[in-house]
């Protein structure tokens, strides 16, 4: 027992009692279950485990604060309608937006931010962090921090290209299928079914084994694999709109299909499509990261998060967290996008009622 452990439990129990006293039932339950969990974790993991919990709680509080401030910032700089929508955003969504914003800055200004070039060898292999290298060196002696920064540009950029391609192919086909109906709809639906009944990672591996790993092939393959998802969603969303009376009215007026898509269907399907874009990005991003991790994605010496994990994986058995940093970078971005998408889906579902 030392002062930290005593203080730790005193704080938790005190806060629980306060919450209970003021009738905040859910906060009390949360705090007190944390106390109980701490007992177990503390007994198993000792003081260091309690430190970890404290650090996690601190990090959580810090990100909540950042998210809150960022949301206020966005509310203040945006127009009235957007501001009203943003005010309803939960902290998770605000946090997601903040992360996405940070990554965008990182990607766009990578050469300015990064202290070293992505392929520049500046020290010995696996050198520990020092004044010039924030996160140490990788297996060839390149600066880890710079490579992470460049990775934001390479990995995210590639995923974005593939997503855009998949999205436009899928959405266009979906809109066309919904408006035209009939055989075209049937045929496209069957093709989508077939592509979707091969697991995506496996399909990608099969195609990469044949066409080799170059970036353009990679983008096209990933786009083909994921466009049926977009197709299905767009088809479903547009399918719900196509049965509306105003579409019937426009058809009976003699309007062409392109007018229907552009003026009647698209304006009513933007919200689910934007949410789907976010989800799609996550899938594509994870697939590309996975392929790179397997050594079949972006090829060295280009800095890429997936391959960085693999290259530094051996360090994990020495208790170093280095390989977790690029992996965490991947996770953080997907989590962030998912947070925002979650909020958007909740909003569009809430507006329907």
């Amino acid at each position: 027992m030392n002062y930290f452990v005593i203080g730790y439990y005193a704080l938790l129990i005190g806060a629980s009692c306060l919450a209970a006293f003021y009738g905040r039932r859910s906060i009390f339950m949360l705090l007190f279950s944390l106390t109980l969990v701490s007992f177990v974790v503390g007994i198993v993991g000792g003081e260091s485990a309690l430190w970890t919990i404290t650090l996690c709680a601190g990090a959580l509080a810090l990100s909540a604060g950042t998210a809150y401030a960022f949301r206020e910032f966005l509310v203040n700089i945006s127009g009235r309608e957007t501001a009203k929508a943003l005010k309803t955003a939960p902290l998770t969504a605000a946090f997601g937006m903040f992360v996405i914003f940070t990554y965008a800055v990182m990607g766009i200004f990578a050469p300015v931010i990064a202290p070293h070039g992505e392929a520049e060898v500046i020290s010995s292999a696996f050198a520990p962090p020092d004044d010039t290298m924030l996160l140490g060196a990788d297996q060839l002696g390149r600066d880890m921090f710079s490579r992470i920064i460049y990775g934001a540009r390479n990995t995210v950029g590639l995923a974005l290209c593939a997503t855009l391609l998949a999205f436009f192919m899928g959405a266009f086909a979906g809109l066309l299928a919904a408006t035209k109906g009939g055989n075209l709809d049937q045929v496209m639906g069957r093709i989508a079914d077939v592509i979707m009944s091969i697991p995506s990672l496996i399909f990608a591996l099969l195609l990469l084994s044949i066409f080799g790993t170059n970036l353009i092939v990679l983008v096209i393959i990933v786009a083909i694999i994921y466009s049926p998802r977009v197709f299905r969603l767009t088809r479903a969303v547009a399918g719900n709109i196509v049965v509306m009376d105003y579409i019937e009215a426009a058809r009976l007026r003699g309007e062409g299909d392109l007018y229907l898509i552009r003026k009647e269907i698209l304006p009513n399907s933007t919200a689910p499509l934007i949410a789907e874009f976010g989800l799609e990005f996550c899938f594509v991003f994870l697939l590309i990261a996975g392929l790179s991790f397997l050594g079949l994605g972006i090829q060295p010496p280009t800095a890429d998060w997936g391959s960085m994990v693999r290259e530094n994986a051996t360090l994990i058995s020495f208790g170093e967290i280095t390989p977790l940093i690029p992996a965490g970078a991947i996770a953080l971005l997907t989590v962030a996008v998912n947070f925002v998408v979650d909020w958007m889906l909740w909003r569009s579902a809430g507006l329907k009622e």
Partner: protein
Amino acid sequence: MGDVLAIILKRLALGVVTLLVISVLIFSAVEMLPGDVAEAVLGQSATPENVAAMREKLGLDQPAPVRYLSWLSGAVTGDFGVSLTSDERVAEKIGPRLVSTLFLATYAAVIAVPLAIVLGVLVALLRNTVFDRVANVLTLTSISSPEFFLGYILILYLAVKAPLFPAIASLSKDMSLPELLHRTFLPALTMVLVVTAHMMRMTRAAIINLLASPYIEMARLKGAPAWKVIVRHALPNAWAPIINVVALNLAYLITGVVLVEVVFVYPGIGQLLVDAVSKRDFPVVQAVCLIFAATFILLNLAADIGAILTNPRLRHPK
């Protein structure tokens, strides 16, 4: 019941057709190689003589449809030809590894499926409370993280910092079951984390979707307590989407293990696929892809049939 049988038979036929189409796709993908298989395999060391010898060995002198049929008839009987890199039979190479992968998938599924459904129902019951929000954030984080991230975190904390489980899942034939389970705990846990989160979210969504239905309000107005409303009135109608998501995740357990197997150096079929892809061992790639696709289709089929069987409208026709 005649109707249901007809629908199921139709669905089965559709599954078989899809599988055939996919087998054509997998076979013809290799046909699309620039040059042909023999040149691709030999690569730098290709001389006209050994290319010709390789072609002879692979039977490339025959037309593609004939080769497809013989490949397919072989595949149906479990014969996928000979590996290009090691002269082993592909089936022999795959066999033991498939068993390992299935073992790992079953291990994870046995933990994940009941856990996810119970937790999903629980979270639906506690919707809009702090627990629901915390669960939402945690599951979302878990789904969004790449498997290797979760895997390495588990290795770092449960194998390296606190050496409770082995980081590398090496197996041997004479292990007892408890030892086997202990050895493969970390890869199984990684997969459990990913699929449980997903299934839990979908179960919750399926139930909450139904909570706005008039018959749920009716149940409440009949005085049914909250747990009964969910378990007796919402759950029976939510089975179709839940079965669907369980099947999807089981398929994921079997096909998505590639990354997990690589992280834990687990001797499964996923590792084999990655090796074969980088060595361009096409018969192995084709065979593994076909097995994965077949599993995927089979599980989807099972889900659809499950959904048909739990639909009261189909089970009790007018």
